[in-house]
């Protein structure tokens, strides 16, 4: 039977292990008292519209209520309360958030990891690809500088963009950015593909560099045969990509044999490896997101900030659970 997080585990964790530093790193301390928080207090009771004057008040609340899950939201002109909920308040700002959840890759995950909890190294590499792609796109295309990546505690990665201009983006602007980054819609059903962009050249080149390289490093020869590669060509293509430390769009075109339809290959690349972002999480400016440093009660794992230089080496397997810590 699967282990579940109970109140006693949480009490021990919150009393001596729970660290507020990851939360402070994500949201800072400015305007803390105007920030919305939400908690899953028990299996059926979710409470939001909460704010705290100080970090001590926040910590005392946690110790008293022992919440199963903790979430943080936007900053308003006043601290939200039950009698003064966010609907009545003026929104001030919110970090710009992206959510990559492996759930969205279920139709292309070739391992047996389906469902909510399972993650293996193969499918985790999809989340890593997405995070690396996102990191480069947000920095180079949009000029953002202050990014942190967080392991959600289950099967996803959150990206927090903390630049001043990003925090103040409205819903329309956030939606536009996530649309810019989206090439697959309806991921869980029809998986409709957009054409690889013609004018957003940096994004286009990144598809042929990062995503294509990852595709060839993960694809089976059999799958390449299905795309029209002859057996010896498949082997050669994979070897060629493996030999290139820096893979370029020019390298990509050299990888495709002349008789193979390049559009078919590019579609397979996008479908198989391109980032799948949870749009509503990004565009909803009032969304609550799991607090870094808190426990994911479904897995017991800690929601952990990932060193952006070590994204490629990060594995959820190395993340401790509440039971490892208490």
């Amino acid at each position: 039977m699967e282990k579940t997080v109970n109140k006693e585990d949480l009490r021990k964790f919150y009393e001596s292990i729970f660290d507020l530093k990851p939360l402070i790193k994500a949201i800072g301390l400015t305007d803390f008292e105007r920030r919305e928080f939400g908690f899953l207090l028990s299996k059926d009771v979710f409470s939001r519209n909460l704010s705290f004057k100080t970090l001590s008040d926040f910590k005392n609340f946690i110790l008293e209520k022992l919440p199963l899950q903790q979430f943080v939201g936007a900053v308003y002109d006043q601290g939200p309360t039950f009698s003064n909920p966010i609907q009545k308040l003026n929104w001030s700002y919110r970090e710009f958030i992206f959510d990559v959840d492996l759930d969205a890759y279920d139709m292309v995950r070739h391992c047996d990891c389906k469902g909510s909890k399972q993650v293996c190294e193969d499918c985790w590499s999809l989340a890593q690809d997405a995070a690396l792609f996102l990191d480069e796109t947000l920095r180079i295309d949009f000029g953002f500088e202050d990014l942190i990546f967080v392991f959600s505690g289950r099967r996803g990665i959150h990206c927090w963009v903390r630049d001043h201009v990003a925090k103040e983006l409205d819903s329309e602007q956030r939606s536009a950015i996530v649309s810019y980054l989206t090439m697959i819609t309806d991921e869980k059903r029809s998986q409709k593909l957009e054409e690889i962009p013609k004018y957003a050249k940096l994004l286009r080149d990144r598809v042929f560099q990062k995503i294509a390289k990852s595709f060839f490093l993960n694809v089976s020869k059999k799958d390449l045969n299905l795309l029209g590669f002859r057996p010896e060509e498949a082997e050669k293509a994979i070897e060629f990509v493996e030999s290139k430390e820096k893979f370029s769009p020019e390298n990509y075109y050299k990888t495709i044999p002349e008789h193979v339809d390049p559009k078919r290959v590019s579609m397979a690349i996008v479908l198989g490896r391109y980032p799948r972002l949870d749009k509503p999480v990004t565009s909803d400016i009032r969304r609550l997101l799991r607090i870094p440093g808190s426990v994911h009660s479904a897995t017991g794992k800690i929601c952990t900030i990932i060193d952006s230089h070590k994204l490629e080496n990060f594995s959820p397997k190395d993340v401790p659970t509440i039971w490892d810590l208490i």
Partner: protein
Amino acid sequence: MGSSEGVILPDWFLLKHVSGLDFDPEAWVGLADERIERFSRRERWLLRRSSAVFEDEWLLLVKREFAGHVLLRLAVSEDERLASWLVENEGDLFEYRFRAALNKEKLQVMRFLFGKDKMLSINDLEKVLGEENILKRFGLYTPSRVRHFRSGIEESSGYVAIYFTDVPDVIGSKRALLYKGWAIAPLFVFFGSIKRKFEALLREKIKKLQDRVAGEPALQEKLKAIRDKLRKIAKKYSSDFGFEPGEIPSGTPLFNRVDLMPPCMQELIMILSKKGHLEHGERFQLGLFLKRLGMSLEDQLRFWYDQAVDNIGLNYEEFTRKVEYIIRHLYGLEGSKIDYSPPKCKTIAESYFCTFAHKDPEEVEKTVLNMIRLRLGEEKTLKNYENFIAKIKSDMVSGKPVLACKTAFHLVFDKPLKHLSHPLQWFYQAAKKEGLLEEKNNKEK
């Protein structure tokens, strides 16, 4: 004629400050009237000085133009629907003038609209970023001058850079090179964003006038006649597109007649029922359309609740609490409190969801067959079906979504459509064809 915020603006640009314009509502009524008439005839006119016009004459002409416009701003300031009508008409006129303007003027207007720090020439961008040869580095061709043959106006196909926060539509549709936060593209790519920015600023200016008008009963009285006239014209204009709430015949709720809706709305409803949610812009497009078909706030909340899968685990009250703000926003009851009108076909094709602008031409036949099935209860090929489909596809390929839509109407309803510029116009004509408007027409007679 002076400058605004350090940018020298052309005389046709109605958001500039005009000096020497003494406020005189009585004298300006005729000018406002004239402007209303021109808008009601859908007339678009240029304000360009020819060499034969003396300076004094020209200044007078410009002042008359501004006076009529300013009085209209005041007249609509207390009525959201009239304000929307004016913003839309002035927006169209602005677009017409902007497209016809010299490149230098275009850049001046853009600097004013976006701010000098957020709209840069490529040279300035290179200075700001401390980099060289940006266009060349990214394989973009260098500016060349082209001729606009129809109007004889010279335009430039040169590139400009606008900061990404101001052009979400261009970013979302990936129509520009995006580099360090700057959307870099030929100027024409930004036309839609420029018009929207103009309309947003005009809306803001009109809103600011509310208090002034409210505090001056004498002025209110003077504006009444213009407002009454505007209401009539706006109503006529609106009914050309479809219905005003009061005009919807009682009996069958029209918003339930999905079969009479244009393909874009039919498809949005289909997507919504399949996926349980729509993108922000699509929700806006469909929500406003249903509102103008007479769907009440209550009905609309119920509609989205029934369709949403995101509401699993929520009861109606909880759902209402969560989404009520968004829906109330559509009805002009929250946020900026603007009683938005549904977007026009052109705007939909540019920024929302248009079947014929955004779908693959090879997939569109499925949509058309589905429309026929909805209308006739079965999928069948109608008279000249193949020809119609071929025409629809060819219009789509040549970038003429509205023409394709008109052809689809002709096929599905066996009736050619003379004009089509708004989704409500489709619905209105379809309802007419169905005989749903007879009662109303008889009453009028």
